């Protein structure tokens, strides 16, 4: 059946799929270093399944989305608009941004919140080639002892953590897996 259009690839059962995805997103954000896999939708290339599921779950007409680099393609724009209604914007106004680490940077262009409303900050969905529980050492809220996560740029993320309670939060996505790094996590380079 010729059902493949710019409008296909959404959640088949939105309430249940989104609830599972939200649980996964919440778990990885609450426990930095944890990796979970998600499913339920087929986003157009170059978005990974995990990034697509996150966008479908977290975005709506009230959240501004920045598509960085190659993700800023017609197919992605149409898919996102149809399924979430989220308005597209540039990096400086984004509530959510998605792309590779290189495409997303520099970090200092994103909103970090205000002292009254630290929540008015951007959440970055970083598409990675690889996602492993190895690499820099993480400590802080939600981590029993220490955890490890393959991070793209330790120094930049340390700078972000130093802004706490302001700062950005991060999801890292690879295929159908995701992990997260909130601003409250302390990062130490290995060694």
């Amino acid at each position, binding site marked *: *059946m*010729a*059902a493949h*259009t710019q*409008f*296909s690839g*959404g959640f088949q*059962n*939105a309430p249940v799929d989104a609830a599972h995805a939200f649980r996964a997103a919440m778990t990885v954000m609450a426990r930095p270093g944890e990796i979970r896999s998600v499913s339920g939708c087929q986003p157009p290339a170059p978005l990974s399944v995990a990034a697509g599921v996150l966008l479908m779950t977290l975005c709506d007409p009230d959240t501004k989305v920045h598509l960085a680099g190659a993700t800023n393609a017609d197919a992605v724009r149409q898919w996102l608009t*149809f*399924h979430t209604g989220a308005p597209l914007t540039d990096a400086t106004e984004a509530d959510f941004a998605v792309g590779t680490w290189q495409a997303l940077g520099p970090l200092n262009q994103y909103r970090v919140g205000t002292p009254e409303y630290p929540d008015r900050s951007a959440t970055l969905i970083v598409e990675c080639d690889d996602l492993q529980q190895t690499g820099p050492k993480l400590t802080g809220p939600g981590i029993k002892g220490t955890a490890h996560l393959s991070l793209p740029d330790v120094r930049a993320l340390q700078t972000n953590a130093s802004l706490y309670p302001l700062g950005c939060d991060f999801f890292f996505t690879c295929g159908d897996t995701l992990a997260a790094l909130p601003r409250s996590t302390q990062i130490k380079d290995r060694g």
Partner: protein
Amino acid sequence: MTDQTNIAVAKRQEWMGLLARAPEDALMPLWDEMNTSPGFEWLRRPEVGGVMVRGRIGGSGAPFNLGEMTVTRCSLVLGDGTVGHGHVQGRSKRKAEAAALIDALMQTKAAGAIRARVLNPLAQQMQATKTARAAKAAATKVEFFTLVRGED
């Protein structure tokens, strides 16, 4: 070419608006009588949501948020690839599905039959209701006449 597209858009706006505003009790009997059930796949299953309605200060000034209204929407694709969207007032998923199917079929060869047997009678019914109210309003229009005019 552009004119053609504009005409097509205007026509689609007209039937989608009609379907959105139509009372369910008026639309469904006409649609059921068509007895058409083309195969389709959901692109977005019917979902009930809210739309924030805006007004303008003084009727023409800056916009402000007035309050929400309920809307049900869905999208589907027919076997031949034609996409139909339904956005209708209220909370009826049945009505949204009918609206999306009609929207899709109106882009196919079935358009003539749908227009004649569903859209036209529906528009007539709704216009008749509207005219009846306008007639009652007209009967309450005040006709002033001067009783005594002061002479000076």
